Every structure is written in structure tokens, then in C-alpha cells.
């Protein structure tokens, strides 16, 4: 049986020639989408799944903001409110942002390094197809008698151990997400290290590939630790172990240490690919090579290393020894150095460039500005003495939403607009893309900026009711939230229009200033690309000459 993929795809291959030879997609829904081993189809599955989860998690955020619109309890019971905050976070972190980045990795990494597919195509299928089962299991807990998990996404014991019937299902769904992530990460590392085309040396790789290589390493290092942590919760709950029970010689704080050993690298897992996407987009629309390519690579690696030794800054108030507090404070502030290198290089990339402001560029610039705000509030939180005041307030909520929404989510949008023409073969509506950007940018600031003031004034997070003094800022925040949520429907409209209805065909290069292997294949990218690897020279890569 011949299972070798079609063989005459070459760079700049003209679509009409030999088309039916290599572009045959499997027929039928099951064969095309369920049994697929194709990195592009699996990438699409990841992206569609992530978008679905983005709206499910987003609707939970709408419930939260609706309840917080006014002081007092009006819409939901406090326990259901807690289920919403818990599930919103679990869904957004594990269901939306992470799978979306793996979707980008699937689509783009083989195209960017000149590989015929991911290194382990069957396992690639499994990485994705675990997720729908895991999230069905997680979401089903909302319909159980006990309701869903309500102890916060961090699952701190002893509170999380009081979860009812849903507890075991939450733990098992986290296990499944972990299996999916680890397999996805192994595949990405093997693809990057083993599948690069001749001439695609490590320091010629696009920065998106570099950031994903380091992200995948982080995933393999910390997802098993999360699995271990929730396993200990499970045995404490069902099998009488005492890991987090002081009477038995354990300690609930130990869970926090283990969780955040996973949790801090996890936040970089969500943001490093974002750094990569921005580092692709800014050079294209500035028509200049990325400033300080090698420094960007080393900065990414430094951030990843530091992410392993800062975890306890999430727990300054649990009563750690002073030496511990100081170490974690200084180590955390150190991260500002490589992150500062990145922001400096992004700004320098744009400096004196021939800039144009298509939608991907707008989202990327929005990211640079707004992510920096989130980064700076992170530095405030890193100061132990100040954090004692900020801890568990809306200031923390404002901080991590600034780095995750106008940070990770904006770059997901930027990347989607940037590569959508390559994926679909059609141009999206620039007009509606810009409307989406401006509505999102204005509303996201109305949504999250007031939360800084709420937190500084002392409003605690994860509480369905609040003192009347917080009413005005909460109302503004909720209005911004509704507007932001509604704005994202525009994105769905733009994508559907682009894929199914747009009449404007995309060229292979799509963007005037775009460089890199992915722009040398036709738009839409054929089902199989680079069956024979191209030979890469320095002039073909986005950052130009070698380093």
C-alpha cells in the first residue's frame, strides 16, 4: 500500500499544474476531520475548538460581569458565581488559549521550517481528539447535583477538597488535558529539531518557531507536575492520604508550591508564542527585519529559565520565611530584563520603518502597548511589601487580564488575521477587521483598567457582592466587558465571510513585506506542502543575514 504523500510540491508551485496529483483531501467528514493526520486539518480543528471554548468561557465571564454590574446579589447564587469564576479560568487557559497556540503551531511550524508535516502525525491527531472529551467531561460537571468546581482554577485545598460529585471528574479532565498537551509538545519539539529543511539552521528559524520550541519544553516540564498535584488532591479526597492535611504531617501550602511550580511556567506557555507572533508581524508591516533577532531568542530562553524559579510570588501572603519572600521577589523582578529587551526590540523594529496598519499590525501594536501595562503592574505585584496589600484583590485580576487578553488573545487575533489569507486563500474584510480591533481595544481598557483602582481600593477577587463604594468602577468594567464580548462576534463574522464568501483571492505572499517559507507556497496552502524539502538560504528568512 502506498501511503507516501504526493511528491511534486515545490516552492512557489503553481496551483494549476499537477494539482490533482497532490492536493487530494480525504473524502467524507470522518476521514477528513476525525481520522486525519494532516497538520493543516489538525491545526484547523484546534483553532475552531479554541474559538468555541473562547465563547463558552467568555459567556461565563459575561455572567460574572452581569452579577458584578451592581452591588448586591441579583442574578446568580454565590456558589454558582464561584463555579463561573473557576470554570471561566479553566476553560480559557486550557480550552481556549493553549489549544489555539497549538493550532497555530500545527498550521505554521511545518510551513515555516519546510517540513512535509508534523514529526508524529498520528499522535498529532490524538493530541487534539482528547480535548473534546476532556472539556465535555469538565463542562458536564456544571449539570451535576453538586454543581461544577467552585474553589478557583488553582484548586487550592482544603477548599477544593470540599467539592462534591464533580471533584473526580475535574481531576480526570485535567489529566486528559495534560496528556494532550504533553503529546502536542513532544510533537512540536520533534518537528522543530528533526524536520527542518536543509539550510534552515536554528538561528535562521522564524521567531514563532523559536518561541514554540521553548514553550513546548516548558509544557513537557510542568504539565506532569500539575498531573501529580491533582493526583495528590484525588488521593487526599478519596483514599485517605495526608499530603495537604496538617494533622497527618502534610501542608495545604505544599499544594500551592507544587501548583505554582506548574502555574508560573504555564503563564509563559500562554504568552511566549504570542511574543513569537508579534515578532513575525511587526517586521512584515514595518518592512524591516526584526531588530535584535538573536537577542530575542536569548531573551525568550532566559524568560523560560526564570519562570521555574519565581513561582512563590503567587503566595507572598501564606507565611513563607523572609529569605524565601526576598528570593522570589528579586528573581521575579529579574524577568523584567529579558522582557524589556523584547519590548525594546519590538519598538526598534518599527522605528523608521515604512509602516502600514493592516488589522494584524494594529493588534500587534495594541499588544505591545497593552501587554507592557500588564507587565508593569506585574512588577508592582512582585514587590513583596506591596503585594501584601494587592494580594487577592482586583488589582491582580486587572494585571493578569492585561497580559492575557490584550496580551495573549490580541496576538491570537493578530496571528489569525495575518495567516487567515494563507489558510483560506481569501482576503478578509479589512474594514470589519479594523472595526473589530478598535472596538476590542477600547472596550478591553474600559473593562480592565478600572479594576486596577478597584483592587488598590481593596475590592477582593472571587466575590459576587461588594461594598457600594466600588459600584461606579464595577459598572464601567461590566459595560466594557459586555462591549468586548459582543465585539468578538465580529471576529466570527469576519472569519466566516473570509473563508466561505470572500471574493478577493489572496496571493502567495499575501503581505507586501512578508518573508519566510510559509509565503512561498500558494494561498490557500495545498493539503500537502514541502514533501520535498526546499533549500533555505539566508536571504529567504525574515530577519535577513545570519547572526
Amino acid at each position, binding site marked *: 500500500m502506498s501511503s507516501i504523500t504526493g511528491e511534486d510540491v515545490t516552492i512557489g508551485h503553481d496551483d494549476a499544474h499537477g494539482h490533482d496529483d497532490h492536493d487530494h483531501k480525504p473524502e467524507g467528514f470522518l476521514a477528513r476531520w476525525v481520522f486525519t*493526520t494532516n497538520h493543516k486539518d489538525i491545526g484547523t480543528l484546534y483553532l475552531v475548538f479554541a474559538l468555541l471554548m473562547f465563547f463558552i468561557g467568555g459567556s461565563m465571564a459575561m455572567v460574572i460581569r452581569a452579577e458584578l454590574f451592581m452591588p448586591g446579589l441579583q442574578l446568580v447564587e454565590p456558589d454558582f458565581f464561584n463555579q463561573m469564576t473557576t470554570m471561566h479560568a479553566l476553560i480559557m487557559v486550557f480550552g481556549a488559549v493553549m489549544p489555539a497556540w497549538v493550532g497555530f503551531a500545527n498550521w505554521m511550524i511545518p510551513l515555516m521550517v519546510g517540513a512535509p508535516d508534523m*514529526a508524529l502525525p498520528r499522535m498529532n491527531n490524538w493530541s487534539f*481528539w482528547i480535548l473534546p472529551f476532556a472539556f465535555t467531561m469538565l463542562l458536564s460537571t456544571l449539570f451535576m447535583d453538586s454543581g461544577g468546581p467552585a474553589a478557583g482554577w488553582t484548586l487550592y485545598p482544603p477548599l477544593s477538597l470540599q467539592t462534591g460529585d464533580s471533584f*473526580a471528574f475535574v481531576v480526570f479532565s485535567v489529566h486528559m488535558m495534560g496528556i494532550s498537551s504533553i503529546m502536542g509538545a513532544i510533537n512540536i519539539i520533534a518537528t522543530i529539531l528533526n524536520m527542518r529543511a536543509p539550510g534552515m539552521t536554528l538561528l535562521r528559524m522564524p521567531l514563532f518557531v523559536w518561541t514554540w520550541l521553548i514553550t513546548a519544553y516548558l509544557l513537557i516540564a510542568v504539565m*506532569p507536575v500539575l498531573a501529580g498535584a491533582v493526583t495528590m488532591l484525588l488521593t487526599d479526597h478519596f483514599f485517605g492520604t495526608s499530603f495537604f492535611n496538617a494533622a497527618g*504531617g502534610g501542608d495545604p501550602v505544599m499544594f500551592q508550591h*507544587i501548583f505554582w511550580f506548574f502555574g508560573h511556567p504555564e503563564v509563559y506557555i500562554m504568552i511566549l508564542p504570542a511574543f513569537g507572533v508579534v515578532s513575525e508581524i511587526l517586521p512584515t508591516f514595518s518592512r524591516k527585519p526584526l531588530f535584535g533577532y538573536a537577542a530575542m531568542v536569548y531573551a525568550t530562553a532566559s524568560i523560560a529559565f526564570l519562570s521555574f524559579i519565581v513561582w512563590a510570588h503567587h503566595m507572598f501572603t501564606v507565611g513563607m520565611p523572609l529569605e524565601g519572600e526576598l528570593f522570589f521577589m528579586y528573581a521575579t523582578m529579574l524577568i523584567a530584563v529579558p522582557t524589556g529587551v523584547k519590548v525594546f526590540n519590538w519598538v526598534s523594529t518599527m522605528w523608521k520603518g515604512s509602516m502600514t496598519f493592516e488589522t494584524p499590525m494594529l493588534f500587534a501594536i495594541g499588544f505591545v502597548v497593552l501587554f507592557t501595562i500588564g507587565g508593569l503592574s506585574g512588577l508592582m505585584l512582585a514587590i513583596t511589601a506591596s503585594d501584601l496589600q494587592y494580594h487577592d484583590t482586583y488589582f491582580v485580576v486587572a494585571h493578569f487580564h492585561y497580559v492575557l487578553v490584550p496580551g495573549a488573545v490580541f496576538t491570537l487575533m493578530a496571528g489569525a488575521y495575518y495567516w487567515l489569507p494563507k489558510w483560506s486563500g481569501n482576503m478578509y474584510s479589512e474594514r470589519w477587521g479594523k472595526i473589530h480591533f478598535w472596538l476590542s481595544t477600547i472596550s478591553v481598557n474600559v473593562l480592565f483598567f478600572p479594576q486596577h483602582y478597584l483592587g488598590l481600593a481593596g475590592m477582593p477577587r472571587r466575590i459576587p457582592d461588594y461594598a457600594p463604594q466600588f459600584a461606579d468602577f464595577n459598572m464601567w468594567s461590566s459595560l466594557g466587558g459586555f462591549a468586548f464580548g459582543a465585539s468578538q462576534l465580529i471576529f466570527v463574522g469576519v472569519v466566516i465571510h473570509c473563508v466561505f464568501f470572500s471574493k478577493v483571492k489572496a496571493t502567495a505572499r499575501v503581505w507586501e513585506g512578508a518573508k519566510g517559507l510559509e509565503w512561498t507556497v500558494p494561498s490557500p496552502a495545498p493539503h500537502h506542502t514541502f514533501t520535498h524539502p526546499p533549500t533555505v538560504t539566508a536571504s529567504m528568512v525574515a530577519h535577513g543575514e545570519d547572526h
Partner: protein
Amino acid sequence: MAEHAEGTYYVPHGTRWPMTGSIGLATMLGSAGFWLNGSDTAMWTFYVGVAIIIYMIFGWFGQVIRESESGIYNAQVDTSFRMGMAWFIFSEVMFFACFFGALFYARALVVPWLGGSSNNASTNEILWQGFMAHWPTNGPGEVGGDFGTIPAFGIPFLNTLILLFSGVTITMAHHALKDGKRRALVLWLAATVALGALFLFYQVEEYVHAYRDLGLTLGSGIYGSTFFMLTGFHGLHVTLGAIMLTVILFRCMAGHFKPDSHFGFEAVAWYWHFVDVVWLGLFIFVYVL
């Protein structure tokens, strides 16, 4: 076409095994949830899930083995498999690191703090009056009641020798494979499987002894928790490794693998060495110290 098959990276078309695996995994874990919540029928669907996963593993690996034996994998595919296995083992290392971390943290910090060290004198005085830090311990609440511990230089030391020796035998098997000595290969590999089984036999005996005679259970406070979690997950991995070795043994008897191409063998050998190294950590930190 054959020419290209030599040179190009093998990309399989369509596979139904991952979806089979997902259905099995969801059946197994979903049932486990209901089982833990007290449903009796869920126990049976749990086993159905396990059976589906076993079916998936046989089907999936069987297909890969057939493809490998038919020679359609080139050196680059081989490297992908190697990287996959190496990074999988790294993830397993981190999984064990989590439980070792729990052991170290509990022993070096939590228990002394409960006993009043650092700035915890008043906590000890008010909450856990009279509790003095010691190890092994089941905590100030003496959770699980009195218990004894397994001496390091009995069964555990014997098991250390068994596993170390099995590391030697599998290396001998590898050399035999590379030298094309098929009979020696099968014998050394069979010896490795036997040593793995012997290890598991003694481990079970030790558990029976702990539960029946020593009062040491999973519920014996932090000592019982860390002891059984670490040795239990290790035992599970030895079981898995022994099953993998057995499969490799049958494959060798069926004439699989060549002196210069035997990734499946090497992957299992790596895994076996990994299990061995984890045991050395266990022997030192759980039994001796």
C-alpha cells in the same frame, strides 16, 4: 514511487487509533469518576475503557511495527521516534519529581514547622501542643494510627540488586542484538523480564507485609502517603516496563529488529533504565534516609 519512498518522510494517511484511544480514555476516566462517587456499575464500564485502550495500543503499535518491518521508515522517521521517546521519558521524570518534591518539602520543612521550628512556636503551642518533629511520622494527629516501617536492608535492598542486575542483562541483550547473536538476545531479554517480575513479586510481598503486619497504609499520615505514592507509581511503571519488555521479547523471537535498526528495543531499554534510576532515588530517599 519506490525511489521517493526511500527519500521522503513517511506521512501516514488517516488513522482510527487515536479516536479509539480517546473513546477508551474517556470511558475509563469517566467511569472512574462515577466509581469513586459510589456507582457499582461504573466499575465494569471502567474495565471496558481499559480494554478499549489495550485494544488501541495493540492496534496502533501493531500497525507501526508492520510499517517498520516493511522498511518504509527512513532514518529521519527513526529520529522522530527517538526524540518522542526521549521527551516522553523526560515528562515521566517530571511526574516523579513532583512526588519527590512533596516528600522533600514535607520532610525538610512541613514536619519541623509543625514541631514549632522557624517562627512556628506559637502555632505548635496552640494547635499541635506536644508534637515534636520526627521522621517517619503520621503527623500531630497521628492519622492512621501506629505503624512500623520497612527496613532498607531487607527486601528493598534485594530489589535494588535485582533492578541493577536487570540493567546489566538488558545491556547484554542489546550487545547480543548488535552482534547478531539472536539466541543470546532472547535469553538475556527473558532474564530481564524474569528479574522485573521478581522485583514486582517482592514489591507485592512488601506491601502485604506493610498492610498486614506493620499497620503502614496509604492512610498513615504523610509518611504512608509519600511512601505508597512513590513506590506505587514506581511499581506501576515497572509493570508497564515489564509488559513492554515482554512484547519486545516476543518480537525478538519472531525475528524482528536488525543489528543496525532496532528503535523499539532501544526505547524499551531506555524506559527500563529510567525506571531503574527512579528506584535508586526511591531506595536512598524513601528507604535508607
